[in-house]
């Protein structure tokens, strides 16, 4: 086994089901995303998008069926192993409030290294900081930054450890259209360069055209919940 194993699929589900108590949320048809693919997953609020992301991130435990990320079956991993796997391989960008408010921009950027236990790659850090235009804000408090700037810090933080997969939960919904496109172009630029797989969930289809592939969660999910049921 060599370190440069070719990963066939970044993401793969077989017969994946999930429910909160007695409320079934997900019952997905088999599906896969290739390594390096940039995928748009859309669906209305409450269709189970966040639940799916939490499963892929390894924060929720797989209850039934199989979920493989980077060819590694999650059902064989303990919660602690999932945390380690996430720290090493997955970058995550939230809709908003991605940053720890009491840390500076730089401190937020290097925070993931504490969990992935890797040393800071200074040239990558500089490249991301310059590429995302964050240089002037490095020592600022994150609370002084605009929403757009905060999302760029979040993107840089997710990219810094060179993750194999980036999960994004409507990271552009707080931005206006022009900023949205610019933000995504920057993000995808770095992802393509590193062959990073992106799974981007949103209910906003205006940005769909920027992605390699677009999928409706409702088409994948056999369970169609009314919005109220999830709340």
């Amino acid at each position, binding site marked *: 086994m060599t370190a440069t194993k070719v990963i066939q699929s970044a993401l793969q589900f077989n017969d994946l089901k999930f429910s909160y108590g007695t409320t079934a949320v997900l019952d997905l048809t088999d599906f896969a995303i290739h390594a390096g693919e940039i995928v748009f997953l859309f669906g209305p609020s409450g269709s189970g998008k966040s639940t799916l*992301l*939490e499963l892929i991130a390894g924060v929720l435990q797989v209850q039934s069926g199989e979920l493989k990320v980077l060819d590694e079956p999650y059902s064989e991993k303990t*919660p602690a192993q999932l945390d380690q796997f996430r720290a090493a391989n997955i970058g995550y960008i*939230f809709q908003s409030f991605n940053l720890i*408010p009491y*840390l500076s921009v730089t401190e937020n950027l290097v925070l993931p290294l504490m969990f992935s236990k890797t040393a800071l790659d200074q040239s990558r850090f500089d490249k991301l900081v310059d590429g995302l235009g964050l240089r002037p804000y490095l020592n600022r408090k994150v609370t002084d930054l605009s929403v757009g700037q905060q999302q760029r810090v979040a993107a840089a933080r997710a990219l810094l450890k060179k993750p194999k997969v980036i999960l994004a939960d409507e990271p552009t919904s707080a931005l206006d259209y022009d900023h949205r496109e610019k933000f995504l172009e920057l993000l995808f630029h770095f992802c393509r360069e590193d062959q990073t797989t992106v799974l981007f969930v949103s209910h906003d289809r205006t940005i769909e055209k920027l992605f390699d592939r677009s999928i409706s969660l409702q088409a994948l999910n056999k369970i169609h919940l009314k919005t109220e049921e999830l709340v």
Partner: protein
Amino acid sequence: MNWIKLAWKSLKNRKLATSLTVFAMTLSLVLLMSVERVRRAAETGFTQSVSGVDLIVGARSGPLNIVLYSIFNMGQATNNVSIESYNQIRNRPEVDWTIPYSLGDGHRGFRVIATNEDFFKYYKFRSTEKVELAEGEIFKGYFDVVIGADVAETLKYKIGSKVVIAHGSTTGDSIQAHDDKPFKVVGILKPTGTNVDRALYISLEAMEAIHLDWQSGSAPTKDKQIAANQITPDMVKPKTITTFFLRTKNRIETLKLQRDINEYQEEPLLAVIPGVVLSELWQNLSSVEKVLKGISFLVMLVGLMSMLIALMTSLNERRREMAILRVLGASLIQILGLIVLETFVLTTMAIVLACVLKIAIEWALGPWLQVKFGLYLDSPLFAMSEVIYVVFMMVLAILISFIPALRAMKSALKDGLSLKI
């Protein structure tokens, strides 16, 4: 970035709550340590009122009685010790030195001790400290008196002041006074923080001299009075003393000597080992200290409760923070650990602050405590018991922090990555 730094920054972000919590914890710890320190000083002051004395010998009564009247000026001797017995014991080969005391008279609330120069030579307290003169010299003439520091301060006496000794009263003013033979202050002792400060010292001969013309415990009539200038050394040779302190040359001889004295044929005597009696007595007097200690522990508990409240109330607003840490790869155990670590940092801050404050307070108030209350803060800066309190507080704080820590862990598990508020 490391965990300690993260915990520190997080605490710093909640400045007000953090500083109030640290303040409450610091105060409780300072209180606990101060109570302990004062207790220790009081105990040392008490049990080491006299040191280096192996035996106290007096007429046969009870051990407590002898200790009380010889050291603390409480109660009276039931009988005297004849000078012959005293000399016989004093001249035994195993005896290093003795200090004779003749008691019974007083002066305006303070007792008068008749002794000899050996008192200034051998009397020790708090292990090694000797009685020293602040000014003047020790008594030479019959009517010279050396006074303790408290006596000098309370009665505003200086070298040369006239002192009239009251008869038969060790505490208050008496009906009968030795006003025909007034004394003159020739020396003032340095403060010791012990009962030495609360007495006047005259020679054994002076004690005889003022009672020379007294008969059956009452003052002489005018015609029978013997004037001060008619006294000859022969007339004032001491015939009895009340008690004496004794030091052996070799400590292992103490028990044998004690037995010999207790079985002394010519006279019923009792020899007691002061250290034993003093610690027994202290045990009985220390209930106040226990109450104080109990209250201090309650204060510590209040300090810890304020910490618990501060951590609990912060948890809800920190759920987002926990979700971010989770997504970066923090495990639930690490979330738990972060809260415990924050508690550790908080408590460490409180402990360091409390120690600094304690040292500062003792430095500032130490001299005043010594002069005013005879509390001598001299033993080690931190005793074992204080170290135990600090460790106890830390352990308790860490244990209590598991309540918010487990809760944070539980809510992080429930929240996942998206806050469902």
